[in-house]
């Protein structure tokens, strides 16, 4: 396999070797079921609970039992939203933002089709949450407000504490999809007044197939998956012990790492500055004053994202794009459209998402290769002449 320069860490991350090492014994040695009465299985319960403590520590939960392990971040989102609307069946109004992950947005659309009144709060051209509209639409009849902590595409951070406060004043539950924020910036569920919060292991060097939902003690809760007493009856299904143990290790490492985000931020800024400087008609998408330190979303005018990605792939550089063609849908990213990014730029957006494993040499390599790729594609583009003017 050729050398890979992996700048797609908002999609998924490498499972850290330290994490894999902790997971391995739980496959063929300690494979017992934590619910079993024999010690062979029952002891694994301690491993699960130790991991729960580490995860609770990372996300700033006051009690470990506020953490429910799920099969993914998406499952956590689905669980939180359905629990909220089913717990308050008389309140038929729910609020989210226009730039959420599909795991939230599609659930809201589904509820809308079933009769719930939904407000999708928009963002400005920098991706900043429209607090004024949010204040004006929330009422005592609002069951749930679900707004992400940080945007996966642009990295823009939302003021979740402020939103949670307003939700609380209106007796609405507040859920936040913190899948992209956890492990990248310091977060505290407890201090932010959050009722429910989703997160995922594979974004912080844990394994795929394991996520979690924080449910603050005292919050009304109804499980999505029925059929077992596991997770205190909040999520049925035999615990994914190896992945949970790995999640604990990943959380422990992330908690140490997140204290210093300056190195990753410096590399991101170097990449961004150089690309915008070297390539004409390149624009940074997102709120540059308030962003995840690892994320850079740049639009290159008059070229199409998939073409850029495939050329980058030739050099082993992995990134992603908000262009229509990459997703199989025919419209560009809903996030960029909500920000009113011009179509000539929305189709040519590329997201680089770094990790603590990213090196300066890798960043320099991208800076060296990308300008030539954009130039080549602009030569092919019929809109290249507009560009030359």
């Amino acid at each position, binding site marked *: 396999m050729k050398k890979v320069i992996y700048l797609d860490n908002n999609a998924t991350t490498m499972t850290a070797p330290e994490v894999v090492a902790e997971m391995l014994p739980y496959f063929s040695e300690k494979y017992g079921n934590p619910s079993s009465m024999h010690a062979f299985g029952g002891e694994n319960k301690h491993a699960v609970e130790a991991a729960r403590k580490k995860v609770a520590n990372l996300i700033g939960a006051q009690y470990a039992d506020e953490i429910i392990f799920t099969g993914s971040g998406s499952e956590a989102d689905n669980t939180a939203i359905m629990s909220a609307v089913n717990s308050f069946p008389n309140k038929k109004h729910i609020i989210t933002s226009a730039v959420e992950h599909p795991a939230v947005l599609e659930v809201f659309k589904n509820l809308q089709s079933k009769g719930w009144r939904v407000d999708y709060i928009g*963002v400005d051209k920098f991706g900043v949450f429209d607090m004024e509209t949010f204040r004006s639409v929330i009422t005592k009849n609002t069951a749930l407000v679900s707004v992400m902590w940080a945007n996966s595409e642009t990295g823009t951070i939302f003021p979740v504490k402020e939103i949670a406060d307003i939700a609380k004043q209106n007796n609405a539950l507040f859920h936040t999809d913190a899948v992209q924020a956890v492990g990248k910036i310091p977060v505290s569920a407890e201090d932010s007044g959050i009722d429910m919060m989703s997160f995922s292991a594979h974004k912080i060097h844990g394994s795929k197939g394991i996520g979690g939902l924080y449910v603050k003690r005292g919050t009304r809760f109804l499980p999505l998956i029925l059929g077992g007493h596991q997770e205190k009856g909040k999520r049925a299904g035999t615990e994914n012990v190896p992945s949970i143990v790995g999640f604990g290790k990943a959380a422990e490492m992330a908690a140490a790492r997140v204290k210093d985000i300056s190195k990753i931020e410096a590399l991101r800024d170097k990449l961004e500055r150089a690309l915008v400087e070297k390539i004409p008609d390149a624009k940074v998408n997102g709120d540059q004053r308030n962003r995840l330190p690892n994320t850079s979303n740049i639009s290159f005018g008059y070229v199409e994202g998939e073409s850029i990605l495939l050329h980058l792939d030739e050099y082993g550089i992995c990134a992603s794009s908000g262009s229509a063609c990459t997703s199989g849908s025919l419209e560009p990213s809903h996030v960029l459209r909500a920000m009113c990014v011009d179509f000539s730029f929305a189709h040519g957006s590329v997201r680089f998402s770094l990790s603590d494993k990213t090196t300066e040499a890798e960043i320099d390599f991208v800076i060296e290769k990308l300008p030539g790729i954009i130039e080549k594609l602009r030569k092919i583009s019929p809109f290249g002449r507009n560009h030359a003017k």
Partner: protein
Amino acid sequence: MWDYTDKVKEYFKNPKNVGEIENADGTGQVGSLVCGDALRLTIKVDRKTEKISDAKFQTFGCASAIASSSILTEMIKGKTLAEASKITNADIASELGSLPEEKMHCSVMGMEALEAAVKSYRAGGKPIVFEEDESAKIVCKCFNVSEETIVKAIRANNLKTVDDVTHFTKAGGACGRCKPDIQKIIDKVYSCETPAAQTGKIPFGQMTVVGKIKAVEAVLEEYVRPKLNMDGGSVELVDIEGGTVKVRLLGACRGCASSGGTIKMLVERALKEKVSNDIKVEQVI
């Protein structure tokens, strides 16, 4: 990741015949920056034999759009206009080995650009943009695809499902509201039914003021606002003067660069189709 054939990859990485022929005998264009892909095809034609002696392309789009465009120029060189006009999108796709289903519209774009370029040659060489006829019944409003185009794609490629039609023509690929209409078209093509008679509508000018407001408000509520809401915006009815409906865009739509397009493509289209053809929509800031 798309499963592209080696030939698609090769024509994407090293496309042949990139550029624009100076003093071209025919220039065909299709697509736009908004749509996400666009192709400009220029051809040189021998007047006596009507053979295409040279062809060049410029494409804005993904790998399969670039590869389809490039291989099309290879395919038409040396052919007469009559021969070239017989090339279908399926020919373009099979020349490339194959294209992923979701990318078939890239080959359709090639066919349409060629059609426009031939038309341009016949019209004396002035560039022609491929577009749906004024009179055509537009089914997919997001991507401006007519019933005629859809029927053609269904017949040429033996398409059976709505997803097939979306992959080949893009119709139904954005908001998805026209999917039931596409299903009806598919049913019609395979059952050879005659089109149902259009239901009569009262001309807008003959409606009462209250009737106008009710009709317009109903369409805004049912067809327009749900779509704008998804992008964090909305629209309000401000006034109706004669046949002109005045609206104001709200929320994220306000001041959006594509607000003019929203008014024309979404609000006016919906009102024309659902209420009356003679409605004009104006934006009030």
